[in-house]
C-alpha cells in the first residue's frame, strides 16, 4: 500500500490532521481555543479509528471510534469548559517556554520521531511506518505541552493529546489485540486525572489557607 491509494491516503491525512492540531494546541494562547482544538482532535481520532475499522474490517474499532467521539470530542471538553467557567480560572495560557520556541521544539520533536521510527520499522508496510511516526509525534508534542505549560487544565490537555497519539498508533496497526480495552483504560485514566484536577483546583480555591496571610496578622500576640 503506497501513495495514491485511498485507504492509505485517508489514514495518512487524518493522522497529519491530528499532528497539525497538536501544533495548533501549542500555538494557541487562549484556554478556550485550546479546548476547542482538543475537541477537534478527538473528532479526527474518532474518524481515524472508524476509517481503520472500515479498512481492516474490524468492527471493534467502531466502538473505539464511538468512545473517542463521545468522551474526547464532547464530554471532556465540556467538562473542562465547565471547570474553566465555574472556577473563573485564567483564560490566557501561561507558558514556561514561549510560543515560538515551543513550536521550534515541536518541529524538532517531529523530526526526531521520524528519524526514530523509520529505521526501526524497516521492512514493515508503509502504512504502519508513517502512521507510527505521526502518532509518536503527537505523543511527543503532548508531552512537550505538559512540560511547557503552567496551567493545570493545559497539562490535562497535554495528557489527552498524548493519549490520543497512543490510540492513533494502536488503531493504525492491523490486528492489534485489546485496542478497545486499551482505549477504555486510557479514558478511565484521563477521567480520573480530570476529576483529580477538579478536586485539586476546588480545594486550592476554597480550602487552602494562605500562610503568608496568617503571618501578616500575627501581630503583637506572638
Amino acid at each position, binding site marked *: 500500500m503506497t501513495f495514491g491509494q485511498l485507504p492509505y*491516503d485517508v489514514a495518512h491525512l487524518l*493522522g*497529519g490532521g491530528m*499532528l*497539525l492540531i497538536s501544533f495548533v494546541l501549542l500555538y494557541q494562547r487562549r484556554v478556550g481555543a485550546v479546548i476547542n482544538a482538543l475537541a477537534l482532535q478527538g473528532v479526527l481520532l474518532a474518524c481515524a479509528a472508524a476509517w481503520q475499522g472500515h479498512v481492516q474490517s474490524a468492527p471493534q474499532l467502531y466502538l473505539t471510534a464511538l468512545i473517542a467521539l463521545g468522551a474526547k470530542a464532547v464530554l471532556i471538553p465540556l467538562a473542562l469548559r465547565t471547570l474553566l467557567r465555574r472556577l473563573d480560572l485564567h483564560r490566557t495560557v501561561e507558558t514556561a517556554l514561549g510560543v515560538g520556541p515551543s513550536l521550534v521544539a515541536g*518541529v524538532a520533536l517531529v523530526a526526531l520521531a521520524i528519524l526514530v521510527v523509520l529505521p526501526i520499522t524497516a521492512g514493515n508496510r508503509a502504512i504502519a511506518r*508513517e502512521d507510527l*511516526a505521526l502518532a509518536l509525534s503527537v505523543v511527543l508534542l503532548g508531552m512537550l505541552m505538559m512540560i511547557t505549560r503552567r496551567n493545570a487544565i493545559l497539562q490535562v490537555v497535554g495528557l489527552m493529546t498524548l493519549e490520543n497519539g497512543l490510540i492513533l498508533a494502536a488503531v493504525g496497526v492491523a490486528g492489534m489485540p485489546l485496542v478497545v480495552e486499551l482505549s477504555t483504560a486510557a479514558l478511565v485514566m484521563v477521567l480520573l486525572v480530570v476529576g483529580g484536577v477538579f478536586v485539586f483546583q476546588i480545594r486550592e480555591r476554597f480550602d487552602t489557607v494562605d500562610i503568608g496571610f496568617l503571618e501578616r496578622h500575627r501581630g503583637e500576640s506572638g
Partner: protein
Amino acid sequence: MQTFGAVLTQVLHIALMLAAAPAVVGVVRWLKARMLGRRGASPLQPFRDLDKLLRKQPVLAENASVVSEAAPYAAFAASLVAIALVPSFARGMAFAPLADLILLAGLLALARMALALAGMDVGTAFGGLGAAREMSFAAFAEPALLLSVLTLAILAGTTNLDLIGATFREGALGLRVSLGLAAMAMLAVAIAENARIPVDNPATHLELTMVHEAMLLESSGRHLALWEYGAALRLTLWLSLLAAVFLPFGTAPAGSGPLAWVPGLLAWGLKMGALCLALAGFESAIAKMRVFRVPEFLGAALLLALLAAALLFVSTGLA
C-alpha cells in the same frame, strides 16, 4: 490553432482578472457584512469607488518627488503582470512558460517595494511606520512561501505554475499530509500579503495597527484608485493561486475552443466563490492580532512548511 487559442485565452484571462478583481473585494466585503448582521454595500460598490477616484485630480505634498507619481503605476503594472501569469479558467495560456512561482514572488516584492517607497516619499511618520512594518512582515512571509514552493517543487519537479497544476490535476499524488501543511502555510502567507485580518485590518485607520493603509495616507485621486485596484488584483491573484495549485480541477486546455472554456470559467467562479466565503468567514470569526505577534503567526506558517518538506523527504525516501 494552438497558438491562437493560447494567445486568445491569455487576453481573455487578463480582461477577466481586471473585471473580477474589484468584484472579489466587493463580494468579500458584502459577505463579511452579511455575516456580521449588516446589509452591506453592493458587491459592485468597489467599481463605483474606483471610477469616482479615477476621475479625481490627485493632490500631492509640496515636497513629494517623482517617486510618488510613478510608484502607483509601477506597483499596478507589477501586480497586473503577476496576475497575468496565474491561470484561472484555462491552462496552457501564452504566458504559461513564464509563470514561475519565484518570479511571481519577485513581482509581488516589486509591487511591495513601490508601495513602501511611496509611503516614505513625503517623510511623514505614518508612511515610514507602515513601510517598515510591511517590509518586516515580508521577511517572515517570503521564507514560508518559498518552503511551500519547495514542497510543490519536490512533488512536481518544477516551479512552473502551469506544470504544477498539470501534475496535481492528474491526481497521481493522492492526498498528502505535506500538501495540506503547505496549503496552510500558503494561506497564512496570503493573509499576511493581502493585509487581511488578523495581520492587518483593511477597513481601519487606527494608527496602532495599520500597515497597508498607513502607506496610502498621502495618496489621492487616480493614484489612490491605482493603489486600491492593485490591492484588489493581488487579493484575486492569491485566491487564484491557491485555487490553481491546490484545486486545479476543471480548467480547460487553451486550444480546446470557447465551448470548453465555459465550464472552466464556471469552475473558476465556484472555486473563487468558495475561497471568498472562507476568507469572509475567517475574518469575521477572528480578531486582529498585535503587530509583534505577526512574526509568531508567520513563523508558525514557516515551521509548518518546513514540516511539510520534511515529511515529504521521508516519503520520497520510502518510495
